[in-house]
């Protein structure tokens, strides 16, 4: 299969503008007769559904949550990037584009990334107009902060709740369309399959999670905005219900899963505390603006801290290894996520981990507290401030900046981060890979689109902080509303799709059989226990560092686990009832396949790039080593019912940036 990216011709900076002006349109009277299904109501889904509704399409929107407002976009903390250059610090669309390409280790499509940078400006305007309370300066204008991998301040934020506020903005826009009838909302409906008619995506099969009833929903096209697959790892910063099923079912119906091995491990999460742990909590990257990452230099100190004989604050300055500042003086604590995570792994692999499990490093705010305290003293004109006074004032400033994050940390761990450094460790956070899409965000299945984290398009092998919100909203508000017309302009003569056609009936039957099969196994092990085991395999063999041997072993282990699942899983309850265990079982069944394709992709990619680190391919200093000659391509995988997967390549063409070894030194 040849993969056509459909990137328009012309100069990089003009592609999108020119393309938009010449694109096929659907007239308003025809829009009224065209139905669009949007699955998912996170930033991408809600913004797409709302905007398509505003344009006049008949939109049917689906979420498995009880309300569209609960999608996991809500948990994003730190911020959203935009090349507004409000800070006058040299930012520009090109710089945002370049930072994103470079941050992604040169594995993303130039044209998509540039479009993202262009649109970033409009997103902020739109959000503010919707009433999103982004942070402001005293003069009433918008404030910015810095994020990893970047040397300008371009991140807009809303305290530590940027995702929540942006999602509520999109949710409100969606609610407005629901109230005027242009969007019909289906809450508590989970997509369990894609329906294709004559090769085109024409509908979905859903399960009403309250009654268990299977439903057939038809439309002229289907838009997936169903998020990432990080929960393959069981422990991740994703929400408990985040899953890959909608995307994976589409892959099984012919779509392709692109770059599945690119998973982002976020460096600042609260470490695992025990076996019962159900999820990991992220501490926003923005903390690295002021927090310094360190481990003790001497093993004796490490042991003393683990045993509780020494407190972290007892370790003298010269006995601390601020390893990010040491290794990467130019970016210091603000290196990109993949780099920071790997550095933490190196430190703990050397045995320097500072908690009982040996899997934690310190994130220390003392220097920031002192610095802010001193500058407060100066600004208040206090001549000889006491140490206590400086700390007090410094803590106040830190509290204003990160108060809710500090509070959250204390709630979870019971430690007070104003007095003792936070303990952090990397955790799975985001997946750069996803359903393969072209420039129009259309998959290789005509009429099937994928937006936001669900697609693979803009971040390459690593995503920079505060770019996920940007991409989700760019896709939903400003890309799909245009590009969907490229497909739908040819569909204006297509009558309403009949959901009683053979294809729909067949698809529904297949779903019912799959549910019956899982319920009838009646084995002895819970779904949760399988998921936990899958997660351990993934983390062990396809986590922060991978190698061929481990991946081969991991693939076999997943295959065995999958066989065991279908032999011995126990799912209580009935199919025609509210049954969260059944929902989970169907999702884990798909993760058990997704995990394998991730490993296959990781095994195929004989290089280290961004979130994919193969221990065989590293420099002497332990930095990732790309292989641009052989692997500058998108690896898109198909998967047939028999579990056979096949690789399809889309070569990445770089016309504007020169491929370089990333350096943050």
């Amino acid at each position: 299969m040849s993969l056509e990216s459909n990137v328009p011709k012309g100069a990089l900076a003009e592609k999108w503008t020119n393309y938009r002006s010449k694109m096929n349109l659907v007239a308003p009277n025809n829009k009224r007769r065209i139905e669009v299904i949007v699955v998912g109501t996170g930033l991408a889904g809600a913004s797409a559904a709302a905007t398509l509704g505003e344009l006049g399409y008949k939109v049917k929107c689906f979420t498995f949550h009880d309300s569209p407002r609960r999608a996991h976009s809500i948990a994003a903390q730190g911020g959203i990037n935009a090349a507004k250059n409000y800070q006058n610090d040299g930012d520009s669309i090109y710089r945002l584009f370049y930072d994103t390409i470079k941050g992604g280790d040169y594995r993303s499509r130039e044209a998509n990334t540039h479009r993202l940078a262009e649109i970033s400006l409009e997103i902020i305007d739109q959000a503010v107009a919707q009433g999103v309370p982004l942070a402001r300066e005293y003069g009433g204008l918008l404030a910015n902060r810095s994020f990893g991998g970047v040397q300008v301040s371009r991140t807009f934020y809303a305290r530590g709740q940027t995702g929540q506020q942006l999602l509520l903005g999109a949710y409100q826009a969606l609610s407005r369309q629901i109230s005027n009838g242009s969007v019909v909302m289906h809450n508590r409906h989970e997509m369990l399959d894609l329906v294709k008619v004559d090769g085109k995506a024409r509908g979905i099969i859903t399960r009403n999670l309250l009654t268990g009833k299977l439903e057939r929903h038809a439309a002229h096209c289907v838009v997936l905005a169903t998020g990432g697959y990080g929960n393959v790892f069981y422990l991740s910063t994703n929400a408990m219900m985040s899953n890959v099923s909608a995307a994976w079912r589409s892959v099984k119906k012919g779509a392709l899963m692109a770059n599945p091995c690119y998973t982002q491990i976020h460096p600042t999460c609260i470490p695992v505390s025990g076996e019962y742990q159900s999820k990991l909590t992220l501490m926003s990257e923005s903390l690295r603006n002021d927090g310094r990452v360190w481990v003790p230099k001497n093993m004796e100190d490490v042991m003393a801290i683990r045993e509780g004989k020494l407190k972290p604050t007892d370790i003298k300055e010269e006995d601390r290894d601020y390893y990010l500042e040491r290794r990467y003086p130019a970016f210091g604590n603000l290196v990109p996520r993949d780099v920071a995570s790997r550095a933490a792994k190196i430190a703990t692999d050397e045995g320097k981990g500072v908690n009982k499990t040996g899997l934690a490093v310190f994130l220390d705010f003392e220097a920031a507290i002192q610095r802010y305290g001193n500058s407060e003293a100066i600004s208040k004109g206090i001549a000889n401030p006491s140490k206590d006074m400086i700390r007090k004032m410094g803590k106040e400033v830190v509290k204003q900046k990160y108060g809710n994050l500090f509070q959250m940390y204390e709630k979870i761990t019971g430690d007070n981060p104003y007095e003792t450094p936070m303990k952090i460790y990397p955790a799975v956070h985001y997946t750069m890979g996803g359903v393969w899409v072209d420039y129009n965000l259309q998959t290789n299945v005509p009429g099937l689109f994928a937006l936001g984290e669900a697609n693979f398009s803009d971040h390459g092998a690593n995503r920079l902080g505060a770019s996920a919100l940007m991409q989700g909203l760019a896709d939903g508000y400003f890309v799909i509303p245009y590009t969907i017309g490229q497909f739908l302009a040819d569909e204006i003569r297509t009558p309403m799709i009949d959901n009683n056609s053979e294809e729909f009936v067949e698809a529904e039957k297949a779903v019912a059989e799959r549910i019956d099969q899982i319920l009838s196994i009646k084995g002895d092990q819970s779904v949760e226990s399988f998921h936990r085991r899958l997660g351990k395999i993934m983390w062990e063999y396809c986590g922060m560092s991978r190698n061929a041997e481990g991946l081969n072993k991991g693939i076999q282990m997943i295959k065995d686990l999958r066989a065991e699942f279908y032999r011995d899983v126990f799912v209580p309850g009935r199919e025609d009832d509210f049954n969260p265990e059944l929902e989970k079982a169907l999702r884990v069944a798909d993760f058990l396949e997704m995990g394998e394709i991730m490993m296959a992709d990781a095994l195929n990619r004989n290089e280290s790039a961004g979130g994919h680190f193969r221990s065989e391919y590293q420099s002497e200093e332990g930095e990732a080593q790309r292989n641009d000659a052989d692997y500058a391509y998108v690896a898109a995988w198909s998967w047939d019912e028999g579990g056979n997967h096949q690789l399809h390549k889309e070569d990445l063409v770089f016309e504007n940036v020169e491929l370089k070894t990333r350096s943050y030194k």
Partner: protein
Amino acid sequence: MKLNLKIWRQKGPDSTGGFETYMVEADEHMSFLEMLDVLNEQLIHEKKEPVAFEHDCREGICGTCNMVIDGRPHGPQQGTTTCQLHMRAYKDGDTITIEPIRAKSFPIIKDLAVDRSSFDRIIQAGGYISVNTGQAPDANAIPIEKDQSSRAFDAATCIGCGACVAACPNGSAMLFTAAKISHLALLPQGKVEHTKRTSKMVAQMDKEGFGMCSNVEACEVECPKEISTDNIARMNRSFLGSIFGSEG
């Protein structure tokens, strides 16, 4: 630690429910929901139906989790959702009673899960700013005073969990409704539709069958985002304004 749990079990919306008692072994570092996970694993192991409860992000922001623990929504800790409540708040041998939210407008689905779609309908009635995608002026075109913006933010932090309704002896949703009205009213962008929005949202709130605020203010105490009842006063004020100040 060993805990006795008294949990409300109810098969479906129309069945009558009752309390069942369970024993569970927990660890002080567990979150409350992880403790329930342990119980459910135990039940599944015994081939019994696990306790249905709703949860998702488990970091206190999605608003999905919502149970009432010993008579208090989200349990005893102020400013904390159930998922953020950790077992170190309890001690060995404690008995914990867990119930679903009780309110007519939040019918029980099963066990501890309730239907809160009435909140969505209140927002749909007018809890938005009518701006289409692409119509927006430059984000810095209208400066907003920092404190004002911060007050709007305080109201906007609502996670729609329903703890306010759960805590209210009247089953009133006024804190929820008022928080959204306030969030938008405090911003210049939201002022334009403010009057209409207030009357539409209040009308929908009434239609959903929520009770009336008698200023008990338990909602403010139980709100995991500590949203102030100042907002209710603001809503009352703007409701009066919408009646007597408008020509419609």
